[in-house]
C-alpha cells in the first residue's frame, strides 16, 4: 500500500510519515476478474515442448523415435486436417466463425500438450526401470489424442450451437467434427507408425 494515500477518515487520527509494516508486508496482489495470462502462441509452443519432453522421457535418452513421434504425430495430424475441416465447414454453410473453430482446436492442442508433459514422471519411471517406456508412450499418446479429440468434437459442436438455432445445422456440425476427429486420429496413427517402422 502506498504510504501517502490514506482515507480521509483515518487522516486526523493517524501520525504522518512512515508507517510500520507488519510481518506480512508484501502488497496484496491485484484483486479483479480472472484473466488468461499467456498469449496463444506461447501456449502452443509450450504444448509442443510438452510433447517433445514426454517423448524424450520415454526414450531412455537412447533414441529419438519417441521424440519424433511425439512432435510430428499431433502437429502433423492437425496441420493436415484442420484446413479441410474449415473448407468443408464453410462449404456446408455452417455459421460458426472460422476463427472460433481455430481457437477451439488450438485450445485442444494446448491441453493435449500439457497432458503429455504431465505424463513425464510416469514415463520416466517406466523408461528408467524397464524397456516398456516407448510402448507406454505410444499408448499414452493414443489415449491422450482420443480424449482430446473427443473434447474438441464437443467444443466444436458447442461453438456451432452458439451461432445456429437449427437442429439440422447442429447435427451437420457434429457429424463434420466427428469425421474430422476420426481422420486426424488415423493420420496421427499413420505418422506414428511410419516413425516406428
Amino acid at each position, binding site marked *: 500500500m502506498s504510504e501517502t494515500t490514506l482515507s480521509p477518515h483515518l487522516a486526523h487520527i493517524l*501520525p504522518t510519515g512512515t508507517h510500520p509494516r507488519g510481518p506480512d508486508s508484501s502488497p496484496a496482489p*491485484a484483486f479483479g476478474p480472472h484473466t488468461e495470462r499467456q498469449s496463444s502462441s506461447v501456449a502452443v509452443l509450450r504444448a509442443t515442448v510438452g510433447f517433445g519432453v514426454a517423448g524424450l522421457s520415454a526414450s531412455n535418452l537412447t533414441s529419438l523415435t519417441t521424440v519424433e513421434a511425439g512432435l510430428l504425430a499431433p502437429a502433423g495430424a492437425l496441420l493436415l486436417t484442420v484446413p479441410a475441416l474449415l473448407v468443408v465447414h464453410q462449404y456446408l454453410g455452417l455459421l460458426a466463425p472460422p476463427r472460433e473453430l481455430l481457437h477451439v482446436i488450438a485450445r485442444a492442442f494446448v491441453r493435449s500438450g500439457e497432458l503429455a508433459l504431465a505424463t513425464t514422471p510416469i514415463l520416466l519411471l517406466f523408461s528408467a526401470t524397464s524397456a516398456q517406456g516407448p510402448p507406454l508412450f505410444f499408448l499414452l499418446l493414443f489415449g491422450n489424442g482420443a480424449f482430446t479429440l473427443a473434447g474438441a468434437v464437443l467444443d466444436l459442436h458447442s461453438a456451432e450451437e452458439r451461432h445456429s438455432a437449427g437442429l439440422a445445422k447442429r447435427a451437420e456440425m457434429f457429424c463434420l467434427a466427428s469425421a474430422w476427429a476420426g481422420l486426424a486420429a488415423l493420420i496421427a496413427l499413420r505418422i506414428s507408425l511410419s516413425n516406428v517402422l
Partner: protein
Amino acid sequence: MSPNLLVATLLGLYLLVGLGVAGRLNQLGYPGLTAASAMVAWPLLWSATSTAPSGLAPGPHHARIQACLEALARTVREEPAASTVVGPAELDSLRRSLFRADARIAAVDHLLNEPGLSDEPGVQALRQARNRASDQVEAVLAGVLQLRVQVGLLALAGDTAGVRARLGDLSSRVAALEELEAGTLLTNARS
C-alpha cells in the same frame, strides 16, 4: 545412459529439488517438520513455497469469515463458468485480506482490554477506528454473500457481467480494508 545410472541420476535430482524446497519452506518460516517432509514429498508441498504462514491470531470475525469463504468457494466450484471470473488467486487474495483485517482488530481488542488504558488519550478514537474496521469487514462479508447470489444468477442466465460488477465492488471494499494497516492502529494507541 545405463538404466542404473539413469535411476541414480533421477533420484539424485529429486532429492536435490527436495532439498531446495525444504530450504525455501524453512526460509518462509514453516515448522522444521514441514521442511523435512519436503525432502520426501516436495511435489505435494510445492504450493506452499510461494506463501508464508500468516501467523495471524484469530479475531472476532474469524469463524464467520471462514464459513463465508468456504461457502463462496463451494458455490464457485459448483458453477464452472464462475471460475473463469472468480479464480483461485482472487479467492486467496480475499481470504488473506479478510484474515489480516480480522487479526488487526484482534490486536487492537487485546490492547483495548488492557487495564488502565481507558484513561489514556486517543483511546476513544482508537475504539472508533476499531469499530469502523469491524464494519468494513462486515461490509465485505455482505458483499461475499451478494457475489454468491450473482454466481447463482450466472448459472441460470449465463451472463458474467453481474459477477464481474459484484467482484469490482468487493475489490473496492477490500481496498478500504487494506488501508487499515496494523501499525497505524497500534501506533495511534501507543502514541
